[in-house]
């Protein structure tokens, strides 16, 4: 342990707790003890305080015991001449720092000073839909992010558990140059590591640097700017705490387990850019409590022994001394070192295209003004089709562009496009075609400056001007697909060739062939019912985060994350026989209505480590399936209405249950079996097996309008199947009512069938 670091961290902790106490006294005097304190869109109050102390802070007066607790954790700085062990003291002070910092941010919220104002700044993509109250400037924006929404936390959950997102990096301070800042962030993005930004050096933050360089920041690009001071570091640590509570099944107050959970399962690290002051040392000590190491780009003492973190605690890697000629290469070395120190497992696929590539670019939006050309959408038709062909008909690596390129299309114009992927492999099966074809969306979206939406013959692709200027052309779609299919599906795909078709005659010919195949697949999927198979599949992908949860996936019930259906699991098992998707022999059917199977029960008992011993596949009332935290929707019984409501992850509004999605998620997730509450994938709503033991889709009395709009066609078909074509109109949503009284009045007015169905209880 470095005495220098201990001294400065303990000094910083003393100072920030004193500052928090002074600020609290001021707030108590000016605002009063009952003034509300809350972070936006979270059910976890002030999450670090809530996680560590099991103490929900809702008003300023609640912060008094928090500051007292922080003070009790403080120690005196080490004596100049009297050396004693001080690791424990430093870590205590680190935790005191975090409690004080969160209290300060809470008070700043009460004063309307958080999220931090940043004129001219606009978060990219979908960042603001959950916090529309902060959209004040024209076009939205004007604020940095502040705390991460629960909704976003959960939607990143699946990526964190399946390894697409290996961890997160907190960049604190300012890089030497803007170029170095961009290079660092790009290196992290390339590895799909979530990037959190805060702090400053001489008033200049890495947020300013990236903003000046035009780097898009927001949830969609995996770059989240929290604030321009070190105190904002509490937001990523709140994110880490909530991860343990949300996915780890841990309870508030289990502070030791929450810290250990982060040490072993949340792969985070901090990079301190520029000089390190007392508060940065103190905050770093807090981060080390979570097992997160710190890598500095300046000369500071190091803490090399392992222990509280899995490997080294503090590493110094002065920027000037990194042996590389350019900022890009220095950034690569620094990031590489950070990854080594944290033990992050990163899988990179090198894709030979002229723009950066990685999952971090998946959510990127190419706006019309930034667009060079689009394929699909309103003005043209784009389709994608993957088919299996005999081995001898595939020339591995062959990429053909058949027809003209987009050079002659005016800027902002559109053209027809067909992407035909032909694969061959000894283990390839026709059943895998749709699974592999669906990957085209993710693969193409990974390129920076390329946007891909939709699938099959409603694909819609945009290429940005920037990407086109860098030399991206049609052939590169082929390069991406070739590289990724080999890298990700090498176990079943031996050879890949790609045709990019723009020639009108050929386009029409292949589109017809593709549509024939889509039809064939639809019929095959429609025929696939639970009774027709003797094997279901498990999905324990999320057990790295939610250790007692196990999804049971049947042909008529897809995974609750929406990402895996029965065919996907079958393919996944073929690709990786020891992986997270294992076959479950159904065994004897004990109850065909509720969906009890001996094989399922036995499997779940083992997979949930004995926590769950019986699962009803088709009931919400009796032994419903557990959930991790990645569900697309929550289904919850509304007893007064004799039905259920369905809340979508995208819906931040209040529900008739008196709770928002994020509050409900705490009840539905964490591997718990809660009768009356269930997390589901949204396409499960369309399955004939949806709550079939409890009355099926006719039980739905309230549904987020987002679902009604985005799944209008599918739900209409369900209503017709249920014998009530107008059922969808009888289902309320948040625009109609958000309380039970309003709901009952609406249901009676419309004559909803749930009111006359047999009682749920």
């Amino acid at each position, binding site marked *: 342990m470095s005495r220098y670091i201990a001294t400065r961290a303990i000094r910083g902790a*003393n100072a920030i707790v*004193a500052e928090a106490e002074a600020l609290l006294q001021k707030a108590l005097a000016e605002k009063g003890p009952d003034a509300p304190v809350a972070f936006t869109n979270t059910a976890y109050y002030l999450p670090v305080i809530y996680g560590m102390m099991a103490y929900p802070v809702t008003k300023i007066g609640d912060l008094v015991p928090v500051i007292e607790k922080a003070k*009790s954790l403080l120690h*005196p700085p080490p004596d100049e001449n009297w050396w004693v062990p001080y690791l424990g003291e430093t870590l205590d002070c680190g935790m005191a720092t975090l409690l004080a910092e969160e209290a300060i941010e809470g008070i700043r919220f009460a004063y309307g000073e958080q999220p931090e104002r940043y004129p001219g700044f606009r978060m990219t993509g979908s960042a603001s839909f959950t916090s529309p109250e902060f959209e004040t400037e024209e076009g939205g924006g004007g604020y940095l992010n502040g705390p991460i929404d629960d909704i976003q936390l959960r939607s990143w959950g699946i990526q964190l558990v399946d390894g697409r997102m290996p961890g997160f990096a907190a960049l604190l301070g300012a890089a030497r140059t803007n170029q170095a800042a961009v290079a660092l962030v790009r290196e992290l993005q390339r590895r799909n590591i979530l990037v959190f930004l805060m702090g400053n050096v*001489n*008033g200049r933050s890495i947020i300013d640097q990236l903003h000046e360089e035009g780097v898009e920041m927001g949830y969609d690009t995996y770059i989240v700017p929290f604030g321009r*001071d070190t105190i904002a570091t509490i937001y990523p640590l709140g994110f880490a705490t909530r991860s343990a509570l949300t996915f780890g099944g841990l309870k508030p107050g289990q502070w030791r387990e929450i810290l250990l959970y982060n040490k*072993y399962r949340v792969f985070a690290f901090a990079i301190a850019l520029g*000089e390190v002051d007392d508060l940065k040392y103190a905050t770093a000590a807090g981060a080390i409590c979570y097992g997160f190491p710190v890598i500095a780009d300046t000369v500071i003492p190091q803490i090399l022994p392992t222990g509280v973190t899995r490997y080294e605690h503090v590493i110094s890697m002065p920027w000037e001394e990194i042996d590389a000629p350019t900022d890009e290469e220095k950034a690569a070395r620094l990031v590489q070192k950070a990854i080594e120190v944290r033990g992050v*497992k990163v899988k990179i696929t090198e894709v030979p295209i002229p723009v950066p590539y990685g999952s971090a670019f998946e959510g990127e939006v190419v706006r019309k003004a930034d667009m060079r050309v689009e394929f699909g959408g309103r003005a043209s038709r784009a389709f994608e089709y993957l088919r299996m062909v005999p081995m001898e008909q595939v020339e591995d690596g062959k990429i053909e562009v058949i027809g003209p390129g987009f050079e002659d299309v005016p800027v902002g114009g559109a053209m027809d496009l067909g992407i035909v992927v032909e694969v061959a492999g000894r283990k390839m099966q026709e059943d895998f075609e749709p699974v592999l074809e669906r990957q085209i969306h993710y693969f193409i979206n990974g390129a920076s400056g390329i946007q891909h939406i939709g699938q099959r013959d409603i694909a819609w692709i945009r290429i940005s001007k920037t990407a086109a200027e860098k030399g991206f052309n049609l052939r590169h779609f082929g390069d991406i697909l070739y590289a990724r299919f080999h890298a990700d599906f090498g176990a079943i795909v031996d050879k890949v060739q790609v045709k990019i078709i723009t020639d009108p005659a050929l386009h029409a010919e292949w589109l017809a062939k593709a549509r024939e195949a889509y039809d064939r697949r639809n019929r095959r999927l429609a025929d696939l019912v639970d009774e027709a198979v003797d094997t279901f599949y498990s999905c324990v992908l999320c057990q790295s985060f939610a250790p007692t949860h196990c999804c049971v996936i049947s042909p008529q019930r897809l995974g609750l994350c929406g990402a895996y259906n029965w065919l996907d699991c079958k393919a996944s098992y073929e690709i990786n026989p020891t992986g997270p998707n294992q076959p479950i022999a159904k065994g004897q059917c004990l109850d065909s209505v509720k969906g009890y199977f001996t094989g399922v029960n036995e499997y779940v008992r083992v997979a949930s480590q004995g926590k769950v011993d019986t699962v009803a596949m088709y009931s919400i009332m009796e032994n419903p399936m557990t959930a991790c935290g990645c569900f697309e929707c929550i289904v919850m019984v509304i007893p007064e209405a004799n039905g259920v409501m369905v809340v979508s992850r995208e819906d931040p509004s209040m529900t008739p249950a008196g709770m928002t999605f994020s509050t409900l998620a705490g009840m539905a997730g964490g591997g718990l079996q809660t009768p009356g509450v269930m997390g589901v994938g949204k396409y499960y709503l369309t399955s004939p097996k949806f709550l079939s033991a409890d009355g099926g889709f006719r039980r739905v009395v309230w549904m987020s309008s987002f679902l009604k709009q985005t799944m209008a066609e599918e739900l209409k078909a369900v209503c017709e199947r249920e014998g009530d074509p107008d059922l969808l109109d009888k289902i309320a949503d948040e625009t109609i009512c958000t309380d039970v009284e309003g709901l009952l009045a609406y249901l009676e007015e419309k004559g909803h069938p749930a009111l006359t169905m047999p009682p749920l209880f």
Partner: protein
Amino acid sequence: MEKVVLDVPLMWADHHVMKVREVLTKLDGVTDVYASSAWKQVLVAYDPAKVKRETLEQALAQAGYPVGQGETPILVPPTEKRRDPRWGDLGFRMSQTYRADLEMSGDFRKW
């Protein structure tokens, strides 16, 4: 143009740096400011014809950052006996590996 380095002991974190810079850069005649919370010093380049050093110091003092005065607040000062007063309050220290630590330390990122 003159340059001066001022000691600002109360500027111990980067949110103070932002305030100090805001105060100084607003003054007519100040051309450059480098504020370091690590060293608790601020380097100011200014035009003495437009602004005096005393004005810089006054502005800082008014903002709560008096030059050469104050100390980082220490809520728990060392005692004469050189014993950490918190040791008695916080109870025992865990000196062996905690059970949950062992349970969680497997290879959880298998996939």
